């Protein structure tokens, strides 16, 4: 043993550089990701919700088609950060039941018509007492697009429909502020980051879930790939506003943000920091596939419902690109990081 001692010392000294993958502190990585991506995107959501509320307030005051157009644009602007944030739909958004309050699907027309045809005064208390099927972005989409909206905004006074629209926008501001506040400071940001590797697992699983949504529910389903090749245009989630493709693009941006750690002008390591050093080939493949998916989506003409009929090959190409990205994340990335691709914590081996 004594003879072996120098050898062991040499071995230890020669090999004591940490491998790149391991040198990344996962708690710091998650904290930085929260600060660079997650919280700023929730702040954007809150800011866009406030813009929407201003637009709907103006709509009810003026009841003009210009104000209606502005409200519709503001609604689409809210969806972008909301869809981006789908890539990290963890913690408060579920725990505080904000997800369903903002977006309950499928839309239940009967529930919103009951409000529309009712006579209870519409105010914040009334709205907060409604079930999630009568609140949130899908209901707002219906109210802002379904039928001849311009003629139903009211004459001398704002109509009940207009008041409903405005009250929903106010509720959206409340929900998005709750969400942003829950993450900040010593809130969920710290709690989540403290989970270290488990937080990374959750993020990767969340990215897998959103990619499954993008390729499976938002493209494959309307394309008819799950229905014997018969396109299912009714399966497009936001067909009234024509925002379906923008939704998919924003979802992909969320995936890219979690992976790269970049959001707008903010930069952090992201999941990529765990991959780039240990498996640069995989890192390049993932970045390349994100870019390819982005390009394929950009080639699809708006709106998705028309593209499926007129340019199905382009939609297919986008679907195939997203499918390839999903495979890279669900198989290659998960295997590289040792991610438990499940939320169950049943015993291991």
């Amino acid at each position, binding site marked *: 043993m004594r003879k072996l001692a120098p050898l062991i010392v040499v071995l230890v000294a020669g090999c004591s550089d940490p491998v790149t993958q391991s040198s990344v502190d996962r708690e710091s990585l998650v904290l930085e990701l929260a600060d660079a991506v997650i919280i700023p995107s929730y702040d954007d959501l809150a800011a866009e919700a406030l813009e929407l509320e201003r637009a709907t307030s103006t709509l009810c005051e003026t009841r003009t088609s210009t104000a209606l157009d502005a409200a519709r644009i503001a609604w689409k602007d809210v969806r972008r950060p909301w869809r981006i944030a789908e890539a990290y739909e963890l913690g408060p958004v579920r725990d505080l039941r904000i997800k369903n309050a903002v977006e309950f699907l499928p839309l239940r027309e009967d529930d919103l018509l009951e409000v529309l045809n009712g006579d209870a005064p519409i105010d914040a208390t009334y709205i907060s007492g409604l079930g999630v099927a009568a609140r949130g972005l899908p209901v707002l989409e219906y109210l802002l697009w379904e039928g001849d909206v311009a003629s139903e905004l009211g004459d001398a006074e704002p109509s009940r429909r207009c008041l409903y629209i405005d009250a929903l926008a106010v509720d959206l501001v409340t929900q998005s502020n709750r969400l942003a506040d829950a993450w900040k400071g010593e809130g969920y940001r710290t709690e989540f980051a403290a989970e270290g590797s488990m937080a990374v697992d959750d993020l990767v699983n969340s990215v897998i879930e959103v990619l499954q949504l993008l390729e499976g529910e938002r493209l494959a389903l309307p394309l008819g790939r799950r229905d014997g090749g018969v396109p299912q245009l009714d399966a497009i989630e936001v067909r009234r506003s024509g925002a379906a493709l923008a939704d998919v693009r924003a979802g992909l941006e969320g995936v890219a943000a979690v992976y790269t750690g970049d959001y707008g002008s903010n930069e952090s390591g992201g999941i990529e920091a765990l991959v780039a050093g240990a498996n640069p080939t995989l890192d390049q493949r993932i970045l390349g596939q994100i870019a390819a998916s982005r390009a394929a989506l950009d080639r699809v003409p708006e709106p998705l419902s028309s593209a499926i009929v007129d340019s199905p090959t382009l939609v297919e190409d986008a679907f195939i690109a997203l499918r390839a990205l999903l495979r890279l994340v669900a198989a290659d990335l998960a295997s590289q990081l040792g991610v438990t691709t499940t939320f169950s914590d049943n*015993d291991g081996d």
Partner: protein
Amino acid sequence: MLQRLESAVDAASIGLYRVAFGLLMFAGVIRFWLNGWIEALYIQPSMHFTYYGFAWVRPLPPAGMYAVFAAMAVAALLVAAGVYYRVAMAAFFLLFTYVELIDAANYLNHYYLVSLIAFLGIFLPLDRAFTLKRRDGPAEVPGWVLWTLRAQVGLVYFFAGVAKLDAEWLFDAQPLTIWFAANSDLPVIGPMLAWSWVPYVASWGAAFFDLTIVGWLLWRRSRPYAFAVVVVFHVLTIAMFNLGLFPWLMMVNATLFFAPSWPRRVKPPVRRDTRARVPVTLLGVYFAVQVLMPLRHHLYPGDAGRTEEASRFAWRVMLKEKAGFVVFHVTDDTGRRWEAYPRDYLSEIQTKMFATEPDMIRQLARHIRDDFTARGLTGVEVRAEAYVSTHGRPSAPLVDPNTDLAAARDGLSPRDWILR
């Protein structure tokens, strides 16, 4: 040798082992219940993956499944108490094994070990000491009783060690490099896990540990140190991996290698003149099966770690970090095409487990065919787009994408549709 096995030994060590085993199983059942796993694993899934020859094993209705687990908890307590011992152990074995046979996606090596120990426990008199039942006569058992349990546990360690004699394990330090990186934020040991040489030392150390630990535990002079190593080894696995009861079970199992009287302050006299014949034939058959099962993967072409043929019941413990992606392509006799997603049929744990297991992919393909047929389609064929990545290597197709898996035959022979 045979004479030594026939001689009586103090029943204290196996009596205490029985108590610990029973309490551990009781805790396991309660843990299972409280975590909601009865619901998640046996009630919620709309389909279950079956074992070859055991497709007839089905879950009971919800109340029945809860009753099974309640009965299992009672049986485990009775085993621990040594009351109605054989009946309790038989009941525990049957209930536990029934539950494990329901869904192959829930297979764990240590669950299999529990079934084996419970099976042996039906026939071995483990209730001669530390029992609440009033007993007459000395607290002794024939030596072969203790050695039967030792041999069973020893085989687990040995074959787990043999499976580690693999180039990827020893020379690439995989999957420990990946797992240690994922645990580098652990307090105290985390930073050490990040050192590049640590996974190599741990890989070689784990192989050495598995292959030799039984010897170190049996040798009286090395035993205290060996047991300390066992405890440290398994405590580390508790800290790093989500292994549930496995490390605790193996720590309890290690006590079987202690001297038979270790739980007593004063070693009682043992009647050296008593002899109990060793059931050579029965034990011979049992252990022949136990030795052949882990070796049977040599009958199959390709890497067992990839094909997963013959990888169960073989103590191939924690050897690979794999992840998979599967989508099914369905056609009917009119030429129409559908995509079918595993998540529409499986629970989360099933989705994870099945994606790297060709036979489970085949079983789900058959289930999907039946589902589409029930919708009124005819001539349904199901093919799989299945990719698996091991240790971060580029994912590769696992099964032939042109084979109608719904029509592929079940059986033990090598599957020609697995891409090896």
